[in-house]
């Protein structure tokens, strides 16, 4: 019995030491190397749960952002040291498509909810979006629009967003969802 207890304590101690090494040495090193500062244990759902409850009541619960680009970014600018704004200023566009998402993640960085992921070099808005609109302001290509949260797939803006320009399909791009021809572009 005593021997079993001693072995049990040793096993638990070794697990605790391993956990300590992981939490205080390995995890900070990985965060520094990959530059992904998201929680290693909790998912976004769990991490943002409290924030989601408070923000969704105060900001704009019926609006959410939508990225109007679905084409895969083969240039892979996700790991680029430059921001979207810098790339857009230097090269204007990263492919033949003028409206293609640059994918450097300026919108993801400013999003207070962590609601924007960069998948295959293109920004994707997930369900954490509370419609604060901060991402719309930082996108240099103007491909993020605010749409009604209840009909997020609709390209046409709802009545309450009548100030926004109407999105149209363009023949210039192979993408199926193309943003409007704004004067800035």
């Amino acid at each position, binding site marked *: 019995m005593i021997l079993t207890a001693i072995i049990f304590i040793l096993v638990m101690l070794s697990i605790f030491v*391993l956990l300590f090494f992981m939490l205080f040495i390995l995890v900070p090193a*990985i965060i520094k190397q990959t530059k992904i500062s998201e929680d290693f*244990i909790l998912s976004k759902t769990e991490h943002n749960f409290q924030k989601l409850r408070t923000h969704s009541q105060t900001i704009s619960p019926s609006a959410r952002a939508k990225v109007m680009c679905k084409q895969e970014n083969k240039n892979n600018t996700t790991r680029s040291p430059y921001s979207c704004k810098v790339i857009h200023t230097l090269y204007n566009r990263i492919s033949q498509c003028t409206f293609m998402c640059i994918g450097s993640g300026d919108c993801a960085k400013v999003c207070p909810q962590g609601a924007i992921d960069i998948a295959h070099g293109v920004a994707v808005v997930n369900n*954490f979006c509370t419609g604060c609109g901060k991402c719309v302001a930082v996108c240099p290509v103007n491909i993020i629009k605010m749409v009604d949260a209840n*009909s997020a797939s*609709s390209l046409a803006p709802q009545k309450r967003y009548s100030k926004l320009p109407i999105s149209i399909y363009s023949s210039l791009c192979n993408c199926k969802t193309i943003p409007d021809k704004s004067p800035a572009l």
Partner: protein
Amino acid sequence: MIFLYYLLFSSSVLIYGIGFNTAIILCDSISAQKLQFLKTILTLLVTTVATSAICTSFIVPLKLAPLYPLVCIVIFLGISIFFETMIRITTAKTTSNFSFSFLIILLALNESVNLLEAVLICLSSLLSFILVMLLTHIIKRNSTYARDTSVNFRALVLLAMATLLASTFFVDLTKFAKGGVL
């Protein structure tokens, strides 16, 4: 039988509500969650086996059974962080998930009598979660196509889940079990 029971009739999502909110949030991008499912399967299996081994070897002989959630969480954290580290280094993607995996492991350890049962319960619970995700995805897609903003998506999902749950109660499970014992 255990697999079918925990997959449909006593689904972890429908009966216990484990991962219901996650299923609603992640239903938009099921194909993007492949890596997360792989990591969850590995974490569930390794944690269940390790915790079960420690429980049978040390905790039960020492009569410390109430301490098993503590052992489980310590092992789970270690394994989860290890797999997360590997995934982040190799693919630069995040797959962290705590409550769903941990609660399924606790459920499996609570309701099983041996290691094989625990593993089966883990896998069937994960599969039932994927099924609910698919169902939620279909409801969301259809409600979006309908473009009827007056219908609340979450209310629709709840109604669908309630209907599914009620429909499973009408099935006589004894027909599936030989000798009438589940």
